[in-house]
């Protein structure tokens, strides 16, 4: 029989096949889907997040771990009813208008999912109105804005302005973005990398 420890290890090493097997096995043994998610899959991704932050692993390792986690999720999620899905919270993410770059944003999405959040990824080139629509539809606690270019990061200000009447916190990030810029445009948090995005999300949820 597999343990949560083994499942987490398989997530950490990015072995999607093993994660899937362990998840199926655990279900057959009567382990609850929520326990598999929290104590196996997310527990594994938590370790990956820490190692990524400490420069012990890099983007490739995070990608294959996220893939392995999803392989496990695919097995157990269908067995959860809507009411049973206990996400830590909902976060809408997207790259701002005029910017088509998404590698950093995707990494943030994976890390947030790995930390147990439900993430709605709007994609790239997202206008302020589209963020607002998504907020109305999905009622997230947090919106994450990404930009790679100095020419597009100004759209963060417009988006934050557009979202100011919604009960939602806004987190920003991307290569040219700094804490100073985040303060200037009125963001609630700035994350300098994907692992920090998770920490900042936890703080925003608690505040």
């Amino acid at each position, binding site marked *: 029989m597999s343990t949560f420890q083994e499942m987490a290890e398989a997530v950490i090493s990015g072995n999607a096949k093993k994660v899937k097997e362990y998840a199926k096995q655990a279900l057959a043994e009567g382990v609850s889907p929520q326990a598999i998610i929290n104590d196996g899959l997310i527990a594994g991704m938590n370790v990956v997040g820490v190692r990524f932050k400490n420069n012990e692993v*890099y*983007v490739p390792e995070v*990608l294959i771990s996220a893939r392995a986690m999803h392989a496990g999720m695919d097995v157990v999620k269908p067995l959860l009813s809507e009411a049973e899905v206990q996400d830590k919270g909902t976060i809408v993410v997207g790259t701002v208008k005029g*910017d*088509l770059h998404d590698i950093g944003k*995707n990494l943030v999405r994976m890390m947030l999912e790995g930390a147990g959040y439900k993430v709605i990824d709007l994609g790239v080139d997202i206008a302020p109105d589209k963020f607002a629509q998504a907020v109305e539809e999905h009622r997230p606690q947090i919106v994450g804005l990404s930009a790679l270019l*100095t*020419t597009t990061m100004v759209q963060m200000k417009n988006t934050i302005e557009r979202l100011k009447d919604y009960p939602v916190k806004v987190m920003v990030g991307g*290569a040219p973005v700094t804490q100073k810029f985040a303060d200037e445009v009125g963001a609630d948090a700035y994350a300098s990398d994907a692992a920090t995005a998770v920490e900042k999300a936890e703080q925003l949820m608690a505040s």
Partner: protein
Amino acid sequence: MDRHQLVIDTLNKKERDVIPFHLDLSNSVRQRLIDYFGDPQFEDKVGNSLAQERNESFVDLGNYRERDMFGVVWNKEQEGDFGVVDNYLLTEPSLNNYTFPKPDEALIRQKCERLVHSHKDQFTMYIIGFSLFERAWTLRGMTDLLMDFLLNPAFVEELLDRIVEYNLAVMDIAMQYDIDCIFFGDDWGQQKGMIMGPGLWRQFLKPRLAKMFAKAKAKGLYVAQHSCGDVHEVFPDLIEMGLDIYNTFQPEIYDVEQMKREFGRDITFYGGISTQQLLPKASPEEVKAETRRLMTLLGKGGGYIVAPTHAIPNDVPTENILAFLEVVQHQ
């Protein structure tokens, strides 16, 4: 002034009273300055120490789409941006359904002739952009390639080998001309740390870079390497392979003083004037002050070519470009 000798001296860590410079422009800014100066040839007259030609050509497909020499279609809807890939050609970790292009010999000869004949007193660089990692991910997709490093290493080896083979064939032609330097462009850095990490870089990229560097060095050419972002972890590796010039050298990423102290004896820094934090945001006076500060700091003992950290993007005001030029032109 012999701009060529000025660069050679700085590469040899010989301090002169003038620091070589280069104004690197994106296409939209180039057009803006042509209009400003009322002179399509203004770039030849600013006094750049470097002359550069790129091993690239694009086919315009209309609708802001351009196809590169490897068949990759770029979406260039965003003005001032290099663009993003529209179609990843290697949808599987295999080269079975892809035919590698051959170097465009006529193009290389045309560009090298231009370098050699019309830039007699400048330091001449032939640029092979997207020289390894970038070429690989523009064919395969960034996410897939990064996972392939771990899941399909044999495929990555084969893909990178074929890219190197192409580059070496380009160099074979370019090095028939009396040029000074081969410049490799390949982004490995993020704002913090390397995309693939130093371990995978050493495993997959380093031995192949070494091969390309060695070929240029064997013919007595200088080698330059561009990477945006933070690649400090592999500086010792690059120096070990004989790298002469590192471009971009972003001051928002590196502690320039420490980098100069640590690596300045072995390497020449080319860049330093930030297109990310300084040029788009600062006042002309601040641009001048920062340019002078870096020239004093990095020019000490030679080993510096003062330049923007990237081709200047279109959010940089004309006054700030003129401020940079005023400092570097009046040394």
